[in-house]
């Protein structure tokens, strides 16, 4: 856990200017190499999916089932994370290829791309870790920060967090509809209904594809194919849930109160993004499989820079943090995931009072002098 520091002593604006410099450098150097990266990745992902599904047709052989399911799971993870999430962020819009563009991309997720772009790119990335604004804090259904008042329902949160992990894509889709804002009148029920219909239409296509059409095509292998597809989808859900929770909710990530937002400068915005995010250590393959959300800090500082560049700029961002005396939270997947689960378990119970041992309080950071 990083020591509490006082941002008043940090030259936030200088920190922001240094980050802007990194951003401009990357933008100016985008080119053929980056385009080749995403094109190759998309081709690999699609071939992996075709290969996985082909193998599953022979799934009465247990090794074929295992290999096919694994290939399909990996393809689905790549499709959602390193490709879909990042394309929808507009990271590849600079290529001006309508086939790889945030305005046209649709993904294998229950959330229609348009709805997700609003709730994720706009609400979450703008209001990152601000209580009452960033609906991603505990996905509005869990108590992840001691600042959130306790309610008996949170006693069940370890259980429904596990459930959420298994059905993550549906959780996200329902969550994007913002049902909890209807009673207070902040959300038009008609709009919510239209959104729900779009979600259902997408879910229907997914279900027909994975649980009806491909199993039927496999004839006698109907059941193993269905189970293989189900396993691949669940594996993707659990993986996505783990990576995303590790990016924002382990100890070390901070949450903020709303007064922080008033007249926030660019430097302060950068600072909030940094303090609200945690990286996960790992090798190249791991970073790709996590959609480079393992570079959550870099991603939150520069959400629209191509993800293949995050690993390259990470040492520079870390060095900057050191220079400015800012924490740069990073840890292994096991450590971060353990930390998230400890928090989910601890905060299921009332308390702790503030300040609590092991739980960083939400801080109002004064604007830097």
């Amino acid at each position, binding site marked *: 856990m990083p020591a509490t520091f006082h941002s008043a002593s940090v030259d936030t604006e200088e920190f922001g200017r240094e980050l802007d410099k990194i951003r401009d450098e990357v933008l100016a150097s985008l080119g053929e190499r980056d*385009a080749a990266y995403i094109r190759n990745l998309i081709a690999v992902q699609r071939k992996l999916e075709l290969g996985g599904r082909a193998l599953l047709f022979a799934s009465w052989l247990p090794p074929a089932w295992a290999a096919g399911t694994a290939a399909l799971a990996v393809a689905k993870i790549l499709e959602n994370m390193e490709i879909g999430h990042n394309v929808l962020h507009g990271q590849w819009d600079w290529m001006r290829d309508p*086939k790889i563009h945030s305005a046209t991309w649709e993904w294998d997720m229950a959330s229609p791309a348009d709805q997700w772009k609003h709730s994720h790119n706009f609400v979450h990335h703008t209001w990152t870790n601000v209580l009452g604004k960033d609906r991603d804090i505990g996905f509005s259904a869990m108590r992840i920060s001691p600042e959130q008042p306790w309610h008996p329902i949170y006693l069940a949160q370890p259980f429904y967090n596990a459930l959420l992990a298994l059905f993550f894509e549906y959780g996200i889709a329902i969550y994007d509809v913002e049902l909890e804002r209807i009673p207070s009148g902040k959300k038009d029920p008609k709009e919510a209904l239209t959104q729900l219909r779009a979600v259902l239409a*997408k879910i229907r296509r997914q279900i027909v594809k994975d649980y009806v059409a491909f199993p039927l095509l496999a004839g006698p292998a109907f059941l193993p194919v269905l189970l293989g597809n189900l396993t691949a989808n669940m594996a993707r859900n659990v993986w996505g849930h783990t990576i995303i929770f590790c990016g924002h909710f382990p100890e070390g990530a901070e949450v903020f109160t709303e007064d922080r937002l008033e007249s926030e400068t660019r430097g302060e915005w950068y600072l909030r993004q940094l303090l609200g995010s945690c990286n996960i250590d790992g090798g190249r393959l791991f970073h790709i499989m996590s959609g480079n959300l393992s570079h959550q800090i870099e991603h939150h500082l520069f959400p629209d820079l191509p993800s293949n560049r995050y690993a390259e700029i990470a040492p520079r961002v870390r060095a900057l943090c050191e220079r400015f005396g800012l924490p740069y939270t990073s840890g292994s997947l096991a450590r971060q995931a353990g930390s998230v689960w400890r928090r989910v378990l601890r905060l299921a119970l009332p308390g702790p009072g503030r300040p609590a041992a092991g739980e960083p309080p939400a801080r109002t950071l004064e604007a830097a002098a």
Partner: protein
Amino acid sequence: MILTSASPATLLQRLSAAAQWLTSPLLPDDYLGLINPLWGAGELCGRVEAVDAETSDAATLVIRPGRGWVTHRPGQWIRIGVDIDGRRHWRTFSLSSAPGRSDGRVTVTVKAVRGGLVSDYLVRSTAPGTVLRLGLPEGAFVLPEPPPPRLLFVTAGSGITPVMAMLDGLRLDNADGPDVILVHSAPTPADVIFGRRLRNLAARWPRLRLHERHTRSEGRLRPADLARLCPDWTERSLWACGPPAMLDDIAAHWTGPADRLHVERFSLVPTAAGPGGRVRFTRSGREAEAGGETPLLAVGESAGVLMPSGCRMGICYGCVARLRTGQVRDVRTGQVHGEVGDMIQTCVSVAAGPVEIEL
């Protein structure tokens, strides 16, 4: 039997709709394109199969168009999308081949303009095997059917390209074919695109008379020169393609009926600019400050908006978008115009004050 009553086209559509259930959220095309980009019909592609040098700064690209191609009329142009340094750029090029070649291929002939991004890349850095995005043939710079009995072509530089496609289709080997004069300008004999081919044709076909104007030694072609080389020039049907100054000269001195003068412009001379304004792209939510000289097309492209485009000079209408609020200035005329809901050409429109574009 339901299937027998369906035409092959609708049968294919039904099959494709059924296949979409297997490929959702992608299209079957996205997987077909993995094997061969020319097979996808969603995005027309062409593969460069040969690049033949024409002069020191011009080359002919022999292209095999993919599924979805439609035969062109000689004189027409296509939009070509090229990826350079990871970014897609669209430009317009006339087809220089006659339609219906037995090998199924078409050609464009490109002259590298100084400082020109796409033309230079196509002439010097394009290897056989490169896949290009294509648009379908468009344009009204074509010969009527049957062709008029007396024709005059006035071309300069790369302006010969659409005319080359027309000559090939004119059956000039035929004794009762039309009477054709071609006046072509280029700096030196070595700079004449299709020089050897044109000279050979003129030698073989008495009905084709070729006048080469070598501007480095003889100076630029003037309308008076035209009248000298071809006294009946305003009585002929005239097709002209070349730099703006030459075309403006010809148009100003043309005394024949307007419907016999056909002009194709490859580039555009913008008029004086005014102050710009803030541009908001409503669908993508992007915004940018735009100067009075930057076309909305370029403004949107730098802001990361997926801007449709083509010729970038007001000809192809590949760039039109709906104006939501504000007014724009047409860079060709300087005229300020626009009402809510107008479809405007973003490539020749600049912001005249704050505007919103539906993209």
